[in-house]
């Protein structure tokens, strides 16, 4: 076992290439035991690939790391036994019934008291009555709950959930997050990749990845506070016109519309103030200077990453 037992995942400078494309580029990330870690990043940024490396499904081309104290380069088999991985796509068999699926997973992990465990899982899911139904016939929300139940069957210490709530309705998402926090309270470490900001706010800590590199990490509060990013929030009338006139001004990095409010952000506070000054005394609008939303921040980070690595990646 590794010395740093309080880290469930500890990867350093891991890199993965497909052909000439570097999909994950020197990523270092640590997950503390018992925390819920949110993994964010635009499409194709390398989240799934990183998760696959953490759970022993892919071997990094370079770098080193440990998952639950096991070496990710050489002890993939041991990692797989103790990690629950929920794939981005529904990974269970649609032509097998709910019970058959769970039973298959249980026997593949060579678990004792299989029947009992499957019964228990079905009961927790509230699916005893439909256990004979084919998994393919379930709705998105139920599929996701079933997939979670399947990867919890062998009582893993670490859960890696790859976009578990994509395409799931708000109620089901809320229930799902309740479950996640319950598990975390029991001491299970959970990594969740997501594109939803409300979910990001529910995590203990976040990591933001773009072009295969970790751009920022920390608690949601820390991220906002340390961003060096400032946002004017404007509500009132004629917001559309205002947005159009502000968009390309020097000192303004981003203009985002949220219904009846407009967020105008920039890194340099002085420049931002100078640029917005001529518009601020409109009596029909209400201006407040505040902290940026997580979403503003991430979109800003994405743009920054594009400037730094985007061209490189295109080469």
């Amino acid at each position, binding site marked *: 076992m590794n010395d740093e037992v309080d880290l469930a995942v500890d990867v350093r400078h891991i890199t993965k290439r497909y052909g000439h494309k570097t999909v994950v580029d020197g990523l270092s990330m640590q997950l503390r035991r018992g925390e819920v870690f949110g993994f964010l990043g635009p499409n194709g940024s390398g989240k799934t690939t990183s998760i696959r490396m953490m759970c022993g*499904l892919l071997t990094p081309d370079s770098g080193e790391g440990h998952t639950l104290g096991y070496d990710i380069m050489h002890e993939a088999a041991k990692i*797989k036994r103790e990690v629950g*991985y929920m794939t981005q796509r529904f990974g269970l068999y649609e032509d097998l019934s709910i019970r058959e699926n769970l039973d298959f997973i249980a026997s593949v992990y060579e678990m004792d008291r299989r029947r009992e465990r499957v019964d228990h899982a079905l009961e927790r899911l509230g699916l005893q009555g439909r256990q004979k139904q084919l998994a393919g016939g379930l709705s998105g929300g139920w599929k996701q709950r079933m997939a979670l139940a399947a990867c919890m069957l062998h009582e893993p210490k670490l859960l890696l959930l790859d976009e578990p709530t994509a395409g799931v309705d708000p109620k089901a998402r809320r229930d799902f997050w309740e479950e996640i926090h319950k598990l975390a309270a029991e001491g299970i470490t959970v990594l969740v990749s997501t594109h939803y900001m409300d979910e990001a706010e529910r995590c203990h800590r976040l990591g933001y990845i773009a072009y295969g590199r970790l751009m920022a990490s920390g608690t949601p509060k820390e991220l906002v506070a340390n961003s060096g990013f400032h946002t004017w929030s404007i509500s009132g009338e004629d917001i559309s016109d205002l947005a159009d006139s502000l968009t390309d001004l020097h000192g303004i990095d981003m203009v985002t519309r949220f219904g009846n409010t407009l967020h105008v952000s920039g890194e340099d506070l002085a420049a931002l103030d100078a640029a917005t000054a001529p518009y601020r005394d409109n009596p029909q609008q209400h201006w407040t200077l505040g902290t940026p939303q997580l979403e503003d921040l991430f979109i800003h980070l994405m743009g920054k990453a594009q400037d730094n690595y985007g061209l490189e990646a295109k080469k």
Partner: protein
Amino acid sequence: MTIFSFARLLAVVKKEFIQIRRDRITFAMMIGIPLLQLTLFGYAINSDPKHLPTVVVSHEQSTFSRSIVQAMQHSGYFDIQSTSIGERDAEGMLARGEVQFSIIIPADFTRHVLRGEKAQLLIEADATDPSATGNAISALQQMTTSLLSHDLKGPLAYAATTSMPYEIIIHRRYNPDALSQYNVVPGLIGVILTMTMIMSTALGLTREVERGTMENLLATPVRPLEVMIGKILPYIIVGLVSMILVLSAARWLFAVPFIGSLWLLVAVVIIFIAANLVVGITISSVARNQMQALQMSFFFFLPSILLSGFMFPFRGMPRWAQYIGEILPNTHFMRISRGVMLKGNGLTESWSELWPLLLFMLVVMCIGLVRFRRTLD
């Protein structure tokens, strides 16, 4: 950490069986196609192969025996490989399928011809594939009258005046009535197994990748080898069932005899099925989706049907086609199954065809395993 677990293998096998059972159409196809093909192919295709390997067992060395051999060579149908071979050796070569004909010239042949007594030339033909031997035999019969006429001149001319200087006795070995179903049925087992086995594994594995279940499967402790064997085993059983189906249909519908050992045939079938399944697995590791897997399966299936000696007599094919044919498992399987069913061959006679089959399987299995591992990364 266990390298190979029987319990996990069993779990995969069980899952696979449930899926096969649920997939009604595929299941019906695996059972229905063999029967359909058996009925359709019940009538064989004829053609005219030449240069068939022949040995001559000559109990006398004379002008006559030499002219017979020469005339046979000239006819184009026979490729005389030896004229100084014992009867027992010739028998063995015929059984192993190394030669198609063995011609036996008896000891007193010349004397009988000269005396005008009925002389006999004995032809032993391997008639398991009647379309291959038919034309050669009729060419031989036409030869008889003209053959010795220029040897029988002057004082010997009287011998040629008799309508036939000698008589040809043909033993159509292994398939005395020259029925083409006899030949087709053993071959059909090979063709059916090739098609169903390759397609089911190639599609089965690519389906897992395409539907995204493979990633989930590989995140569990299951080993690639367990997945591979677990996928193969159920189809071996399905393959055996369709073989039994074809054999019974052959027995009751076409009255094809079965002389050899059923157990030997079953053992060979299992090896043959395994050889095809590893081809399927290799295809699935190359194919990106089920459509590609299907196309590649057909790419392998066509030569297996056309160049294996199933459609056309093997010895009637051009040389290059024969070389390709020799690689294909179906070619060897068909020779073995014909030998076992119709000639009653045992393991020793079958060995010369069995080892190429085993070699093929081992080579492709290595490729398949290496490629299969790579797809995980």
